[in-house]
């Protein structure tokens, strides 16, 4: 199974991100906005990878009132994106990987999986039931790490977006 966001296949037609914004945390204060200013989306419709991690590109827009805001928004979004990506990959690959190993072992290591642990209980059965039991713990720990790593970042992005919309409305 391939994951679309792995970007295994380099695409020469598109500008590639020079740095992956892993581990960035939202430490930015919110920038106030004067009333009556029109929102500028410049720097936003371009290729997305150039928005963050390359500060030099944003200098031409520095005189525009919203360029900085857009930049911050992009950085928040990038942090959220990478947090989600880490969470998704770790949890999915763990779940899928352990299951594939289990099925392959069941098929090709029948003697190992048929080994009796206690009484009639074979290793294969025990592992199968163990996976079901571990599922409860996995779901619990997914929820906990999502609350820790993703939710605060998502809140920042949401608030900033709400701020932008409010700015437009004014």
């Amino acid at each position: 199974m391939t994951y679309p966001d792995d970007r295994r296949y380099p695409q020469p037609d598109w500008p590639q991100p020079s740095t992956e914004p892993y581990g960035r945390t939202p430490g930015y204060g919110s920038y106030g906005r004067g009333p009556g200013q029109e929102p500028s989306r410049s720097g936003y419709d371009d290729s997305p990878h150039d928005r963050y991690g390359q500060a030099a590109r944003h200098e031409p827009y520095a005189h525009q009132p919203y360029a900085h805001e857009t930049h911050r928004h992009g950085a928040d979004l990038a942090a959220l994106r990478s947090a989600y990506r880490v969470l998704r990959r770790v949890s999915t690959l763990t779940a899928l990987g352990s299951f594939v190993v289990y099925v392959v072992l069941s098929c090709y290591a029948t003697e190992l999986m048929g080994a009796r642990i206690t009484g009639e209980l074979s290793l294969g059965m025990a592992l199968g039931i163990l996976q079901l039991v571990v599922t409860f713990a996995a779901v619990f720990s997914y929820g906990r790490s999502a609350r820790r790593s993703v939710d605060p970042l998502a809140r920042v992005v949401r608030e900033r977006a709400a701020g932008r919309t409010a700015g437009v409305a004014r």
Partner: protein
Amino acid sequence: MTDVDSGSQAIVLVLFTALVTVTLMMCVMAGPDRDDLTNFYTGYRSLTPLKNGLAIAGDYISAATVLSTTGIIALAGYDGYVLAVSTALSLVLLMFLMAEPLRNAGEFTMGDVLARNMPGRAVRIAACVVTLAATLPFLVVQLSGAGSLLTFILDMPHGAGARTACIVIVGCLMIIYAALGGMRGTALLQMIKIVILLGTSVVVAALVLNRFDWSPGELVRAAQQGSGTGPAFLQQGLQLGTSVGDRLDFIGLQITVVLGVACLPHITMRLYSAQDVPAVRRSMSWAVGTVTTFCLLVIVVGTGAAALVGSRSILAADPHGRTSVLMLSQALGGAHASAGATILYSAVAGMVFITLLSSVAGMTLAAASSLAHDLFAHAARRGRAEPRTEMTVAAWTCVAVGTVAITLATLVQNWDVGVLTTLAICIGASAVAPALTYSLFWRGFTRTGLLATLYGGASCALVLMVFSEAVSGTPSAVFPNADFHWFPMQSTGLVSIPFGYLAGWLGSRLDHRRHAADSRASRRLYDESEARLLAAAE
């Protein structure tokens, strides 16, 4: 079923009528107002996470899952245990990988998710076609199974007339639930079903364990004897065989189940009715917990069926063992005509009945919603349909989908159509899963790629399935006397899932080359909607 006396049949009939009356009343009372689309499709997103989670679990555990999984465990032992694990894991994977972005991206149907970055009628039509291709086979197999199951439960003569009557009755009820209840009404139905299902399974599993003095070892030993296979009962290979190709087929089937079942449209549709991201996470936690508990119980129940009923009787009643739960409840009841035996049999029969009803109703609603929302409102009327008109169309498409399903189920009732379940899951894994993962996580995904994934994955699964071992050439196939198979497997996932992903990638590459402007446009739309996708920011 010669030993069920007329008294317990009368009780079963009364129970069925009571179940139908109560659920119909609740369904209609919870149903939507005449011209409120959001209410019809999502129930205002007003369900609490616990309720929504139970509804997801209810939709997820279809009658096919309950009856076939028990049967496979009873007949094939270890292979059935692996199937139970993969069934539970599929929902876990949906939760980890897609549930949250899917909730943010979707509105009412799968077409909304896929078309958000690629507006256009072709996408909507493709989404609708694949939704139908994935839900209709599932619907037909369960309806045609309903015929034989109900005649079995009520001990009617196994003539075609009685089965047709049962199919038509269940089909009409399912249309009424879906058309009048909408999302909210069917959610209530699913909650009632999952509570009854879990309650009955707990009781049956406890009775099984009690019979063996709460010793799993004794139970497993008795199951090995009852299955007549001895130690092979606890090793992989009874279901599909032990040659190299058979084992590959087994691995392919399990991976298809893991990727495909949870992606089916009638399950993802429930996610859109969650309030926000924490709510969808809690809903999914409840759903996964419920489904996992059920899978643990089904292992005990299936092993108990092998131990107490024995594979010979199970096979005599149904080659797939779908009646094993019912036969187990009779075996547990022991002495005929005792009150306890009658109550247990009625409870299990009622559980099977409500499970059948609710799963077909959920699938009808998913298919009809896609027809009304994607095909009528967005493809035919280009998104300018009045909500009131769309509601009316949705109700009538429920009737249409139901009628088609009833007709097909009646036509195929004499064939062994269990293969249609596999087909639906294969289409889910090779068309729906690639389309959703690409659409949610790959910004370079384009319209051509999406169409290639949906049509390519679905048709690859369909063609391979038609020419597979499961349809012709083997004694257990749909057409055992004909032989036109050239695909040597029972399920197509091992080939069609990579094909679906490859088709999407190649299609997108083609768009980058040929229609650079279009592909840039869909990339820009992805970027603009990313805040909404990840954080639900408007």
